[in-house]
């Protein structure tokens, strides 16, 4: 057990405040002033975490953030499997994001499904100088000829598009008309827009509103008959199959899932969503915009849920069921009861191995708060957390429902800060991304990637919880962490001994 849990809350708060002061000393004055607003020690009872968020990253500090293109192509649009997503601009953006997100899908890739292909306009100097609209028009023609079973096309703008004044909307309109009203969606998600991936989510949501919802032809209306139990899963990207291990629970409680946004999603599912009776929203950060829009325009209520760990899953199933009749409420109880033996077995197996272990998180989307319950179900404690691109409403939810008194909060953490915090706090586990993984493993700290699930998953739902628990055990209790010091070198420092 680490030292963190052996101290009083007052001592922890004092220690955490001290390490914030320490990291701020490294910065030039102006930067220190700006960064200070993003770091805090959470005080119980406050309505938010006391940090500024969704502000520009500071140049040169090694932010972990990405860009609007990543938010649109990588997150919202990329998983729509039967559409072709063109990375419009130079080759790199599409190349680096090619196939790396693990948003699983079923389909014949390259024929009727296109998620793990890299379509790019591969801009050359002449395209920058003379504009890329003609090339884009030709690309759409070539797609139509070579990939005739695509159900639609999106244009994911890279930085140069907005800078050289291309009119991708005009090209989209013309080509849509030429191909009989085909869905062609221009997305203005140039990487320089906004401060992170977050604006890309918003822009992508707006593109669904403007170029899918507003253009649904009467004849393309979905073919199925509505039922009172139709729901849509919004904001589950099906990383390692997350949306599947979630969908199965909703179906088992008697609901019918008519759409997945957007993991393993299809254009038909997007178009059918206005028929849902309730939108259930997992990643609030990336998909609240379209949920609010559907509420305003179609009167569809939405409800946030959390499918990490049995406590939150049960709470969420009941919360969702509250929107329906007794049949569904009974269904929720039936599902909770059905999986209780699995939950008991998982906890019996892993809790004793993980009890009291401390975790520090830094992730995107919903996870900096959503996974806390799953760790707590295993007897673990999250002692520090922060959002890559959260807004104030994320920190409010975090403060009100998730974090404990004295938790260290760090928004848009810099590489330097994160290393310093981990060094000083000596958590038993760090959960963050690929860029952070090897830094902390070199330091001898167990690590799990909490974007890609470290190529494992699913982590959502009861089936996913078993994998989550097993993976955390693998990370923390691997014998390799006892071997980081050569036996002929100095013995591990006292704080490391305490961490074992």
């Amino acid at each position: 057990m680490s030292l963190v849990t052996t101290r009083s809350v007052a001592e922890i708060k004092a220690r955490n405040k001290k390490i914030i002061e320490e990291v701020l000393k490294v910065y030039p004055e102006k930067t220190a002033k700006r960064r200070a607003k993003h770091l805090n020690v959470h005080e119980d009872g406050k309505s938010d975490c006391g940090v500024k968020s969704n502000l520009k990253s500071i140049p040169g500090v090694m932010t972990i953030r990405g860009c609007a293109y990543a938010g649109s192509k990588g997150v919202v649009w990329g998983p729509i499997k039967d559409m072709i997503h063109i990375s419009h601009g130079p080759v790199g953006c599409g190349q680096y994001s090619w196939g790396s997100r693990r948003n699983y899908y079923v389909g014949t890739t390259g024929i009727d499904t296109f998620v793990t292909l890299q379509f790019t306009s591969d801009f050359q100097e002449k395209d920058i100088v003379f504009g890329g609209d003609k090339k884009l028009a030709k690309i759409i023609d070539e797609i139509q000829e070579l990939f005739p079973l695509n159900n639609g096309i999106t244009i994911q703008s890279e930085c140069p598009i907005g800078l050289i004044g291309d009119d991708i909307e005009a090209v989209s309109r013309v080509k849509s008309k030429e191909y009989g009203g085909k869905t062609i969606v221009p997305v203005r998600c140039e990487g320089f827009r906004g401060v992170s991936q977050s604006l890309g989510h918003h822009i992508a949501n707006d593109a669904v509103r403007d170029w899918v919802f507003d253009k649904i032809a009467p004849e393309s209306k979905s073919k199925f008959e509505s039922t009172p139990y139709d729901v849509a899963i919004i904001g589950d990207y099906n990383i390692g199959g997350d949306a599947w291990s979630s969908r199965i629970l909703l179906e088992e409680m008697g609901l019918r899932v008519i759409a997945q946004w957007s993991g393993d999603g299809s254009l038909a599912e997007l178009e059918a969503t206005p028929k849902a009776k309730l939108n259930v929203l997992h990643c609030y950060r990336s998909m609240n915009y379209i949920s609010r829009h559907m509420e305003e325009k179609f009167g569809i209520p939405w409800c946030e849920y959390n499918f990490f760990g049995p406590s939150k899953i049960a709470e969420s199933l009941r919360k969702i069921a509250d929107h329906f009749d007794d049949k569904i409420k009974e269904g929720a109880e039936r599902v909770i009861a059905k999986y209780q033996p699995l939950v008991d077995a998982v906890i019996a197996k892993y809790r004793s191995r993980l009890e009291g272990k401390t975790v520090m998180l830094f992730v995107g989307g919903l996870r900096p708060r959503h996974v806390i319950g799953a760790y707590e179900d295993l007897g673990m404690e999250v002692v520090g957390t922060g959002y890559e691109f959260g807004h104030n409403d994320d920190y409010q939810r975090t403060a009100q429902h998730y974090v404990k008194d004295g938790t260290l909060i760090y928004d848009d953490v810099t590489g330097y800060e994160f290393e310093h915090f981990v060094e000083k706090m000596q958590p038993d586990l760090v959960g963050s991304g690929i860029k952070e993984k090897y830094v902390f493993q070199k330091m001898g700290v167990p690590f799990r990637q909490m974007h890609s699930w470290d190529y494992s998953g699913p982590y959502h739902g009861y089936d996913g919880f078993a994998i989550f628990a097993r993976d955390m055990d693998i990370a923390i209790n691997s014998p390799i962490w006892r071997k980081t010091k050569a036996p002929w070198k100095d013995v591990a420092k006292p704080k490391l001994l305490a961490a074992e």
Partner: protein
Amino acid sequence: MAQNAEHVLDHFELFRGPEYQQMLANKKKMFENPRDPAEVERIREWTKTPEYREKNFAREALTVNPAKACQPLGAVFASVGFEGTLPFVHGSQGCVAYYRSHLSRHFKEPSSCVSSSMTEDAAVFGGLNNMIDGLANSYNMYKPRMIAVSTTCMAEVIGDDLNAFIKTSKEKGSVPAEFDVPFAHTPAFVGSHVTGYDNALKGILEHFWDGKAGTAPKLERAPNEKINFIGGFDGYTVGNLREIKRIFELMGIQYTILADNSDVFDTPTDGEFRMYDGGTTLEDAANAVHAKATISMQQWCTEKTLPFISDRGHEVVAFNYPVGVSATDEFLMALSRISGKDIPEELTRERGRLVDAMADSNAHIHGKKFAIYGDPDLCYGLAAFLLELGAEPIHVLATNGNKAWEEKIRALFAGSSFGQNCHAYRGRDLWHMRSLLFTEPVDFLIGNTYGKYLERDTGTPLIRIGFPIFDRHHHHRYPVWGYQGGMNVLVKILDKIFEEIDKNTNIAGKTDYSFDIIR
């Protein structure tokens, strides 16, 4: 319920259970508006035809699954090869997140790099303030010995002037006036990552040799006996550069490896994170001007750097990723000629061992047909090795290959009786390769991790050699250069050949008469 606490099912088992299979089938039927399976099958078969290939090769605008990345990736790769150097990419920040992820996924190592985080206001007013603040922050936080600046396409499109910006930043006190801040413009819409490597390396050498952007006298060359060595953009940099150092040391040659990133991409796990490790010292980078010769292992990674070096009076020699016996012979003989040192007996014996291994196993490779794709030099080196093994590199494809590359590789084919049916494809992508593999099938495919999609679609077994390799671990730690590296490549190829024979002969009572214990 499929899941089980005692035997936890992973994604690849969990979703194959009946509950999930039924759920997914129902989802598809009810809500996805799926295509008629017969139509999907018809199109799938059509994409395998010569007719489709013709349409596919007629593409003028669309690129699908290219085998290249953009310039700044190469710039970052080269920059971290210098002592204590922090790469600083001027432009949008998302790009840097991508380069770092890409390199980390290949090397399974940290990859440190900063961005100037330009946003909309910088797009309008230029990124000068981002440069001023960014350099000051990086300098204070990460205590680098040098900051190597390159650019994303955003900064290039709006025309930011790095030279002027860095000068102004120094005047404003972001970093001390004498602090080294070499730079290179690396537009993503020109060339590829190999171009970025070239530009960044040239920028760093120019900085040290040509008077540090006007702040110091230009270095006068005083020729010495040293040889400079440039590896180029190389996924095997860790294993290769260590092998090259061993060879130089065996031969007793004084050398400078330029952009030596073999340590920073291979740091130990011992409780300490080393943001910087090893690398060409800044002193050595400056003194490299005095060397008698510079050797590049990759001609197309050094198209600008080599002429720049040559202008300073060096002899320059470029290879095309030498792999195998003859290419290594040429490399060593060039070293020997330039240095005046004999090739030691130990290397001669290593050569003999590689020839021995090839003689032992060549029957399994001789006459086999291969497709290769990757960076231009890598393609050339592997094709030459296959020819030397009596194999036929039927399709050789480099998305970032130029006309000169195509001509050179054609000459290589023309010079071998095994090259008569072989073709080079430049500027083509892996969707073109898919058509080639369907219409003119080969026995094996050599390429990076993305080749697994081609392996799945066409059934051509993939031998993973190239960059990036994301789905196999640690191969970058082993060299592919030198005779020992040639041995590693030979074994990789042979292992796949034998695995395929075993896989094709292992049905009990049907095909297993050929399931031989000795091969």
